[in-house]
Every structure is written in C-alpha cells, then in structure tokens.
C-alpha cells in the first residue's frame, strides 16, 4: 500500500472514532455551556433590536439583516444566526452537523499527525509506537489549543471579540510559531536552537493577540470560565486519543506496504 493511502486510511478510521467520542464528550462539557450562552446572546440581540427600533422610529422598511451586517464582528448582537443564512435546527440536526464537523476536524488533524509519523518512521526505520503517537498528540494539544488559547481564550457565543480575520491570522501565527519552536527544541538538540525555539514560543504572545478595548457582554464570567476549562480538557482528550490511535492504526497499515 502506498504511503499516501496508508496515511489517509489510518486518518479516516481514527478520525471517525475520535470525532464520535469527542462529540459525546462535548455533549456533557462544551455544548450545554454554548446553549446557555446563546440564551444571553439572543436576549442581547432582542434588546439591541428593540433599542434601535425605538431610536429610529421613522426608518422606513426597518431591515434587521442590514444592521446585523453593519457592525459585524464588533458587537454582542452580530451573531451570524441573525443574517438569515441556513443553519441546522436545534436538537438532532444541529448535533448531527456537530458530529460530522468533529469527525472531519479529527480526520484533518489525523492527516497531519500521520504525515509526520510517515516521515518519522521513514527516517528512523522504526514504526511510530502508540506511546510516541500520544506524545505527538500532546504536542498537537500544545500547538493547537494551549498556545493560541493563551492569547485568544475559548470564547462563548455572545461575547464580543476583535474582528474575525485578525484573530484567525494571529491564531495561525501562534500555531506556526509554537510548532516551529517545539520542533527546534525537540529535534535540534543544541543550545542556539533551544534559545531560538523558546523565542519562537514566546513571540506571538509578546506581539499579543488582537482584542477589543472594552468588552461588554451579559454572558456571566463564571460561564466563560467553565467554558475555558471544558474546551481545554475536551481538547486534551481529543489530542491524546487522536495521537495514540492514529499512530497505532497507521503502523498497522504501513506494515502491510
């Protein structure tokens, strides 16, 4: 079997399993908190619409979608649900899409992991053990959750944040710098490389994530705190499972090559 096929098969199998497990974990951890926050978010939206409607009583053909777009990404009331685009219905449909998105995300990250496993086992000649895979999973947790989460903590719906694109760019920069820094420390065992690695790890945080000057939200901070914990722990489960499982499944497919 070609390396590419081994990677894809291993990633689809382990991504499917881990995606479904994480969907179940989220139903107890993050999803109830998201639903609670949406109650506050919707209340704020209604309030905002009422306020704007009374402030501009003469505005003919009052267009809700228009002022939703107006301050997009800036205020509490700019949730995309207000723009009228399709969205899954609450309940089974919404959870089915969440499960599908979880599976796809897990497959995507498994493709990255298995790609590294293939390069690694090709270079060393030994297959990547489940334990080494788990270590790679922990690295993934540090790179994709811990590092970006320091600057951009997991956010609930209804909590205003800096413009989306700027946060996505910072997120990506933090991920790349953290991955590069860890790689320098782990694979180039020299003092200059270690120093460069630590600098890379700290650089995105010295620059700082984009944030709003003042945040007004009626989502309680206790809810936000619970959410940060839930996301971080769920992500730890996700990455350790994905690292261990992907390496084990990939090793099986790769052996039959």
């Amino acid at each position, binding site marked *: 079997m070609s390396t590419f096929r081994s990677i894809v098969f291993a990633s689809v199998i382990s991504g499917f399993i881990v995606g479904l497990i994480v969907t179940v974990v989220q139903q107890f951890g993050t999803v109830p908190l998201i639903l609670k926050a949406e109650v506050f978010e919707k209340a704020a939206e209604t309030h905002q619409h009422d306020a704007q409607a009374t402030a501009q009583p003469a505005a003919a053909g009052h267009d809700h979608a228009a002022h939703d777009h107006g301050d997009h990404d800036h205020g509490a009331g700019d949730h995309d649900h207000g723009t009228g685009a399709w969205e899954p219905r609450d309940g089974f449909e919404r959870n089915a899409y969440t499960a599908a998105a979880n599976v796809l995300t897990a497959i995507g990250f498994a493709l990255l992991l298995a*790609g590294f496993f293939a390069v690694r086992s090709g270079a060393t000649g030994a297959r990547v053990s489940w334990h080494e895979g788990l270590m790679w999973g922990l690295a993934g947790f540090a790179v994709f959750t811990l590092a970006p989460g320091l600057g951009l903590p997991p956010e609930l719906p209804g909590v205003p*944040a800096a413009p989306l694109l700027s946060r*996505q760019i910072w997120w990506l920069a933090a991920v790349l710098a953290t991955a590069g820094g860890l790689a320098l420390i782990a694979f180039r065992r020299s003092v200059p490389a270690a120093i460069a690695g630590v600098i890379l790890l700290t650089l995105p945080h010295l620059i700082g994530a984009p944030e709003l000057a003042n945040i007004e939200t009626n989502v309680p901070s206790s809810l936000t705190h619970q959410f940060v914990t839930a996301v971080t722990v769920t992500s730890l489960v996700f990455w350790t499972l994905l690292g261990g499982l992907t390496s084990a499944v990939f090793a099986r497919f790769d052996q039959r090559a």
Partner: protein
Amino acid sequence: MSQSQLANAQVTLPVAAGQVGRLSQALMAMVLGVFVIGMVGFSHIDVVHNAAHDVRHSNAFPCH
C-alpha cells in the same frame, strides 16, 4: 540516462529515493488535512460556519 545508469542510481540510492517518495506523499496528505481543517474551522462561508458552529467554539477556533 542509459538503462545501466538508471539501474545503478536505483541500486546506490534506494533509501534516499524511497524517502523522497514517502516525504512527498506525506506532504500531500498533510496539505489535504490542512484543507479539511481550514474548511471546517475557518471558512467564512455562512452556511459552513453555521453547520460547524458548536465545533468551532468547542475547539476554540476564532468564531463570529
């Protein structure tokens, strides 16, 4: 390159040649992975955002 040279190259560089094939295939798979993650987690298309909404929040991907 003649047949004998080609055979010679394959005999003398089997590990390196295999490595390059493995590396490029691994890179292809990783690009595919980045594409999938980018679509689910970062696409600005409203419909994609709404479908993956809870996952984006749960993964702490920047959302809204």
